[in-house]
């Protein structure tokens, strides 16, 4: 068995006096598809944002692909990471946001090519060719010249996925990528995720409220509550036969609210 | 140079005039702001046109011209104002025109859904405005009103040009009587700044009092 690609080791994170994560540890294997579920405010988004280096951690260690994320070695000493180290580490990770965060002043194709051209120095023509392949994959090739404002939510989200893929990260983070969408648009995006999941060997972490999707998609499900992993396991175990009371309660509520599991 | 204390008294007299002007000007500006701001949202074309004309005219012509007009030209059509009246009139009408746009903008910034909730609850036009829209809009206006009041305070310096013995004017007097420029001007700069600080502090604490409860902690 190979080494974990993400290794989180006793990390803590507070906002002001409020402790969101308290000594959390977890590991993710290469090519694993991981679903993170749990009630609102339990810290799911925070974990993804920490991995994307959008938030700093207060203590603990994270290793990505065998390398420290927030620390770097210099002459045998472990120092806090500088911006250069972080930038290098970020190349391995991509993220798709709940609210898409497309660049509104750039066309669809420019959104996808901007980072490869700027950060990898890929020539524009090559970048655009690759971008068109990605847009084709997410079914947005015909909208390459459109501006984000002209797209529906589901279309925006698909472009956002293509944009993240363009940097060819080894790990992709998805944060409730369907929850800002109308029910009918959710399908479009889930379809793209299905394809991605079956066709690539990226490691994927997915925060979602779509229990049905989490069930079918994930190799492993983590149930979070108050910054702790309450329960984890194969989707069938978690959804059909949750062991913890908290998990049972959560799933019951979700079902009562009309969601299919 | 024993007279400094006396001249300082002179400057304080000027400060009183400046405060008086600022207060009275602000009251007039506030009245005009609501009249014209609500006027611009009126259903009646004539009222809208009148309010728009007032706003564009007073924002368009410089405060100086308005002041000189109020002081030197109005008497020719039979309206003679004391310098203080002319100053209050020009300042109040001028700043009122700017504040009217603040009133209008704040009212329009209240989301359509609040108006719709009023309709759904069958509130009349004025009832909705009075109980639902204005109380919320007031909070939006307040910070800008604070800035407007400071603009007005600063504009009072201009009235020294029509011989009203405000702070700036008294500084000029002290300057020509003593031959010293630095002391009187530094003094009044500090006084103006303190007055401006008092205004913004007052507005901020008012704002805090009014905002109480609007962004409470979610339980």
């Amino acid at each position: 068995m190979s080494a974990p690609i993400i290794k989180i080791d006793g990390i803590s994170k507070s906002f002001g006096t409020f402790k969101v994560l308290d000594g959390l540890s977890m590991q993710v294997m290469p090519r694993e598809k991981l679903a993170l579920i749990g009630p609102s405010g339990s810290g799911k988004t925070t974990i993804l944002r920490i991995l994307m280096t959008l938030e700093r951690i207060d203590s603990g260690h994270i290793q990505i692909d065998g390398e420290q994320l927030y620390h770097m070695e210099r002459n045998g000493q472990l120092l806090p990471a500088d911006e250069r180290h972080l930038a290098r580490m970020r190349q391995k990770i991509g993220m798709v946001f709940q609210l898409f965060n497309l660049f509104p002043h750039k066309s669809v194709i420019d959104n996808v090519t901007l980072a490869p051209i700027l950060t990898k120095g890929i020539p524009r023509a090559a970048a655009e060719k690759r971008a068109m392949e990605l847009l084709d994959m997410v079914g947005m090739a015909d909208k390459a010249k459109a501006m984000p404002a002209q797209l529906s939510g589901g279309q925006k989200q698909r472009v956002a996925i293509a944009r993240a893929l363009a940097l060819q990260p080894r790990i992709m983070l998805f944060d409730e990528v369907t929850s800002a969408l109308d029910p009918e648009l959710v399908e479009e995006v889930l379809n793209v995720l299905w394809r991605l999941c079956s066709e690539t060997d990226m490691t994927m972490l997915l925060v979602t409220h779509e229990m049905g999707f989490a069930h079918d998609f994930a190799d492993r499900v983590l149930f979070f509550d108050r910054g702790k992993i309450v329960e984890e396991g194969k989707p069938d175990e978690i959804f059909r036969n949750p062991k913890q009371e908290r998990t049972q309660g959560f799933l019951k509520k979700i079902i009562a609210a009309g969601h299919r599991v | 140079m024993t007279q400094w204390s006396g001249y300082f008294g002179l400057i304080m007299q000027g400060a009183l005039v400046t405060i008086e002007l600022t207060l009275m000007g602000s009251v007039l500006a506030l009245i005009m702001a609501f009249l014209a701001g609500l006027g611009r949202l009126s259903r009646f074309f004539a009222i809208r046109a009148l309010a728009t004309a007032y706003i564009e005219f007073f924002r368009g012509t410089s405060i100086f011209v308005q002041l000189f007009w109020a002081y030197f030209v109005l008497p020719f059509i039979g309206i003679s104002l004391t310098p203080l009246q002319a100053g209050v009139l020009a300042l109040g009408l001028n700043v009122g025109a700017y504040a009217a746009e603040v009133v209008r903008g704040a009212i329009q910034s209240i989301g359509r859904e609040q108006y719709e909730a009023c309709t759904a609850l069958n509130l009349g036009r004025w009832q909705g405005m009075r109980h639902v829209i204005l109380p919320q809009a007031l909070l939006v206006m307040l910070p800008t009103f604070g800035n407007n009041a400071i603009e007005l305070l600063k504009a009072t310096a201009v009235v020294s040009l029509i011989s009203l013995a405000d702070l700036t004017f008294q500084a000029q007097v002290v300057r020509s009587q003593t031959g010293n420029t630095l002391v009187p001007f530094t003094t009044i700069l500090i006084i103006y700044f303190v007055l401006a600080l008092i205004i913004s502090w007052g507005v901020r604490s008012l704002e805090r009092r009014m905002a109480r409860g609007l962004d409470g902690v979610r339980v």
Partner: protein
Amino acid sequence: MEWDWNFVWEIMPTLIQGVKITILATLLGSVLAAIVGLAIALARRSPNKGLSRTVGFLAEFIRGTPLLVQLYFIFYVLPDIGILLPPLVAGVIGLGLHYGTYTAEVYRAGIENVPRGQWEAAKACNLNARQTWTHIIMPQAIPPMIPALANYFIAMFKETPLLSAITVLELMNQAKSVANTYYRYVEPMTLVGAFFLVISLFSVVLLRWLERRYGKIER
């Protein structure tokens, strides 16, 4: 006192001289205010607390005190420490500094109005700080600033009469000089008012256009 058209035509060339200076002062003042504002905005964002606090306080001070007094200061007090500026230069510096504190706020708001998600997306795309500024933040921050900046430049234009206090022969000063020569105030003051109104009405049209063109970014 009657309106005298002959007199109007007689003084027109003199007033037009003044108009030129007024416009020149406004243009130079605007350029300076744009630069000063940017410098202030950047200094206030600086991680160096000493710098950002000092600049912040100075900007507050300049914004809280009248431009007229600042002009007196620049023109009559600075020479004591060896800084001797020609009237127009002193005037432009006064306008530029004063309005720079306002444009700084425009820059700040413009930058802060770019949603946090854009910074984060830029990071997730692995852009560095410079790339983030030039490709993501500025292109979104600048267009909505344009109408706000223009607004302040128009306000500055209306305050140029203050330069008469430091012997700049702009429009207002020319008008006063004419008035003093002939002992007639009505015509010159009215003409000055009309001139400001005309320019302002034009600038309102320009502003509306700028707002439509640049005011909103569609997301």
